[in-house]
Structures are given as structure tokens and as C-alpha cells.
């Protein structure tokens, strides 16, 4: 298990490769991952940059609790969670969640659950600077379990 609050840019696919290189090959059959990336638009406005604030101490303990909870609910071989904080530009990754398991159902469901739990429980806050130079706090996260 690895959990990281990242104060600089990170490369999710390289991080996955590096993490997996340390795992036992052949021991897992399913890897489900999610990467959240900063977009250059939100709610109809162009976004120039973003600052991600967090609550040092609580963020880590909440994320750890969320990961522990997932391990209780699903048979997971491993979990990797990286979350960016600080100043971010469009196109840069914000969050990476990856779950390794023997079978796909556990990996998919745990990965989804981790993201929903992170979005509702982990103390992070986004402030956007728009292309018109005004800034605003993102007021709430988008819906999780509905898309059709």
C-alpha cells in the first residue's frame, strides 16, 4: 500500500509502472485505476489554474481510513493513492487511485469506492483562477454514481 500527498507534478502511468514493478508478477489478475486530471473548463468557464488546499494530518488519516475500509470490503492485493496539492495547471493530474486484485469485480468496485469516499470525506478544496482572472472556490463535487 502506498499513499502520497504530492506537492509537485506527478506522472500517473509512470507511478503505476514503478509501483507495480515492486509487486510479485503473476500474483494479481486485475488492476483498476482512476486518474483525475485538471480540465481547462468547468461549469462553462475557462480555467487558467487551480490551487488545491488540504488539511495536513487529517487528509492523510482520512485517506488511510478510506483505504483500510476498502481492504475490509474487498480482497485487494494492493492499493496506490496519490493526490496532488498546491498550484496546478490544466492537463496536470490531480489524483491517482489504483487497486490490484485477483479478479476484476473487486478491483473495479474498490477503485470506484475509493474515489467516491475520497471525494466525500478527504479534506481537499479547489480554488479556480478563471481565464478572466477572477477566482472562485469550487463549491461541490460532481455526482458520483450516475452518468446516463
Amino acid at each position, binding site marked *: 500500500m502506498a499513499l502520497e500527498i504530492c506537492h509537485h507534478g506527478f506522472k500517473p502511468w509512470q507511478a503505476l509502472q514503478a509501483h507495480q514493478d515492486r509487486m510479485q508478477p503473476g500474483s494479481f489478475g486485475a488492476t483498476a485505476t482512476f486518474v*483525475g486530471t485538471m480540465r481547462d473548463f468547468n461549469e462553462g468557464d475557462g480555467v487558467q489554474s487551480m490551487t*488545491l*488546499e*488540504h*488539511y495536513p*494530518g*487529517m487528509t492523510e*488519516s*482520512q485517506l488511510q481510513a478510506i483505504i483500510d475500509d476498502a481492504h475490509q470490503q474487498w480482497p485487494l492485493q494492493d492499493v496506490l493513492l496519490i*493526490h496532488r496539492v498546491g498550484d496546478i495547471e490544466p492537463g496536470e493530474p*490531480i*489524483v491517482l487511485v489504483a487497486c490490484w486484485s485477483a479478479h476484476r469485480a473487486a478491483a473495479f468496485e474498490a477503485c470506484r469506492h475509493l*474515489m467516491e469516499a*475520497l*471525494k*466525500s*470525506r*478527504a*479534506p*481537499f*478544496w*479547489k*480554488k479556480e483562477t478563471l481565464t478572466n482572472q477572477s477566482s472562485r*472556490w*469550487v*463549491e*461541490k*463535487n460532481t455526482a458520483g454514481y450516475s452518468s446516463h
Partner: protein
Amino acid sequence: MTKTLGSIRQCVHNENMPVKVKLFASMREYLDLNETEIPIENIETVADVWQAIAGDKPMPENTLCAVNLEHTNEAAGISDGDEVAFFPPVTGG
């Protein structure tokens, strides 16, 4: 005896740690306050902590609070030395 009790009470009183209060994101801007400490006296719940730092300013709808890094609610009890935080809905991920 009265004097002794008084001095013991005084002693316990001195050992009380203040309550640490932290504010984040739009809540920090709302109260123009980042972090502070308040004496435990007269503080029983999270709601009391809010009143101590915010005075007349109402708590915004959807405010979240945490005690010692755990999510909780306004009715939660406070002990000396606790860390209490107020913040808006989280928007990570």
C-alpha cells in the same frame, strides 16, 4: 481545606490545554482567520467553539467540522487540547 481545594482546582485549571481551532478554504476567508487557540472554559461542544471564534457570524449552511482529524457534527463534545476544524464541503479528487 477550602484553601487546599482551591489550590488543587487552580492547579487543574492551569493544566487545561487550550482548544486549537483551524479554518480552511472559503471558511478561512469568511472569518478572516487561519488558526487560533481558545481557552477550554465555557466550551462544551463544537457549536460553542464556533461561537467563540465567529461571534455573531452564522455558520454557513453545509459547514463541515472535525475534532482531532475526524469528521463530526456541531453537537460533539470538546475536551481540552482538542483540535477543532471548520471547513466547507470538500472538493478533492
